[in-house]
C-alpha cells in the first residue's frame, strides 16, 4: 500500500493545478480575513467581540471550500478526462486500493493546507481587530474546525468526482450540494423541514466552524453528519468504480 501512496503523492504534486488550487485556498483565506477584519474594525460602532473576530477571520472559508472541492474532484476526474485512469488501473488493478490511496494522500494534503490556512486567517483577524478578550481553547477549536471542514469539502469533491467521473459535472454537483441546496433546504416548512435543513451537507458541516446558535446539532455532531454525507458519496463512488468498465 505504501507504494501506491507514494505513487499518488507523485501524481498530485507533479501537476500545476494542485499547487495553484492550494495556493488560491491559502490566499483567499488570508486575504479575506484581512479585508473583512479591516472593514469590520473601521465600521464598527462598538469594539468587536472575540466571537465576531473569529467569524470575520474565517470569512474566506466559503471560497476556500469551493477551491478544495474542485481540487478533490480533479484528483480523480482529471484521470478520466485524459484516460490516465486506465494506466492507473493497469498498475493497480485492485480499484478499492487505488481509491483508498487517493483518499489518504489527498486528505493528508488537504488537511495540512486547510489547517495552516485557517490558522493564518485567524491570526490575521486577531492581529487586525485585537478583540478585548480571547480564549485559546476557542481559537484552537475554530482553527481545527475550519481546517477539518475545508478538508472534508475536498473529500466530498473527491467522492463526487469518483461518482460522476466528469470534471464539470462533478464540480457542478459539488456546488449544488454544498452551496445552492443548503440555503434552499432552510426554506423547507415544518418540523421535518427543519430536521432536513439542519442535517443538510454544509448546514451541518459548518457548525464546527461557526457554532450552533440556530441548529439542533452540536458542532461536532454536525461535522459528523457532514462526514456521513461524504462517506455515502465515497462509498457509492467506490461501488461504481469497481463495477464499471474503465
Amino acid at each position, binding site marked *: 500500500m505504501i507504494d*501506491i501512496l507514494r*505513487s499518488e503523492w*507523485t501524481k498530485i504534486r*507533479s501537476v500545476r493545478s494542485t499547487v495553484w488550487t492550494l495556493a488560491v485556498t491559502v490566499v483567499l483565506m488570508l486575504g479575506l480575513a484581512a479585508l473583512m477584519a479591516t472593514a469590520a474594525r473601521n465600521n464598527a460602532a462598538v469594539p468587536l467581540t472575540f466571537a465576531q473576530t473569529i467569524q470575520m477571520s474565517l470569512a474566506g472559508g466559503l471560497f476556500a471550500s469551493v477551491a478544495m472541492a474542485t481540487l478533490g474532484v480533479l484528483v480523480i476526474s482529471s484521470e478520466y478526462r*485524459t484516460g490516465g485512469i486506465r494506466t492507473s488501473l*493497469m498498475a493497480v488493478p485492485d480499484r478499492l486500493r487505488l481509491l483508498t490511496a487517493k483518499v489518504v494522500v489527498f486528505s493528508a494534503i488537504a488537511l495540512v493546507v486547510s489547517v495552516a490556512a485557517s490558522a493564518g486567517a485567524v491570526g490575521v483577524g486577531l492581529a487586525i481587530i485585537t478583540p478585548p478578550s480571547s480564549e485559546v481553547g476557542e481559537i484552537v477549536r475554530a482553527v481545527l474546525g475550519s481546517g477539518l471542514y475545508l478538508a472534508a469539502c475536498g473529500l466530498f469533491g473527491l467522492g463526487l468526482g469518483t461518482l460522476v467521473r466528469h470534471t464539470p459535472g462533478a464540480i457542478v454537483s459539488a456546488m449544488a450540494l454544498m452551496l445552492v441546496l443548503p440555503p434552499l433546504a432552510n426554506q423547507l416548512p415544518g418540523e421535518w423541514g427543519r430536521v432536513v435543513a439542519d442535517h443538510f451537507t454544509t448546514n451541518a458541516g459548518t457548525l464546527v466552524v461557526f457554532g450552533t446558535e440556530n441548529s439542533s446539532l452540536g458542532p461536532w455532531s454536525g461535522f459528523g453528519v457532514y462526514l456521513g454525507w461524504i462517506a455515502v458519496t465515497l462509498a457509492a463512488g467506490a461501488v461504481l468504480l469497481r463495477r464499471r468498465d*474503465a
Partner: protein
Amino acid sequence: MTAIRATNLSKHYGRTVAVADLSFDVEPGHVTGFLGPNGAGKSTTMRMILGLDRPTGGSVLVDGRPYEELRHPLRKVGALLDAKAVHGGRSARDHLLAIAQSNAIPAARVTEVLELVGLAAVAGRRVGGFSLGMAQRLGIAAALLGDPEILLFDEPVNGLDPDGILWIRTLMRDLAAEGRAVFVSSHLMSEMAQTADHLVVIGKGRLIADTSVREFIGRSSQGHVRVRSPRLAEVAELVKVGELHADHLRVTAMSPLEIGTLTARAGIPLEELTYVRPSLEAAYMELTKDSLEYTS
C-alpha cells in the same frame, strides 16, 4: 507457460456484441499480430486482458491468472493502449515515476527507459507539448518500466512517421527475440506481415483465423502468372487454364517455366512473363470482407 490465454471471451454492450466467443493463445518468444478491421473488437479484447473491462462471458488469463490477481502487474505485463492518455501537465519523468512507484519499481529504472526510448533529453518537459511520436515513445517507456515478460501494444504505429514505425517494428522483434510475448494489434495486414510471426485475425468480434503468418499467406491467397504477348489469344489457347483479360493472361495453375516452355515450343514471342506474389492485403481483405463493420 502460455502468456495470454483467452477462452470463449465475450463482451456485450447492451445488444451490441463487441467480442463473441473468442479463444486464442499468445506464446512467449513471438510477435503475435492481432488483426482485424476497425471496430472488430481488438481494443475491447485488450482492455479485458488488462482487467479494465469485465468480460460478459468467458475468461482471459495472463501467465495463468486473471490480471487482477497479479501483485505487481507491471512487472509481468506492459501495455500501450492509447499514447495520448496522459496528463499533459506532468513531466515525462514524473509521469513514469508515478507509474513505477505504484509497482515498487526503482526510480533508476525511469531514467533507463527514458534513455531506451530516446526521451532522456526531454524528460523534464511537460507531456502536453509532446508530438504523437514522442507520446508513443513515452507510452512504450511506460510499458517497459517493469521489464515485463508480456507486452501488449494497441495500434502502436498509428500516426507515426516512417522512422518511428521502423523503430517500433525493430523494438517489437527484439523484445520477442529476448523471449517475451508480444501481442500487437493492427488493422493493417501489411504492417503485421513485417513484424508478426503469428496472427490472430478477428472480425465483428469473432475469430477468423489463428495461424502463423506463413500459413496465412499460403492458405488464403495464391500467386499467379501474368503473361503478355502480341499473340495473346494463341497463348491462351495453348495454356488452356488461363483467364484472358484485355491486355494480359492471368494463370494460376501453371508456373512461369511451364508457360514459357509451352510458348517457346510453339514459337510465340512473349512481352511479359511475371510471377505475381500473393498479396497479403488481398488475402486479408478476402478473409474479412464479410465482417467489416463499416464499408465504404
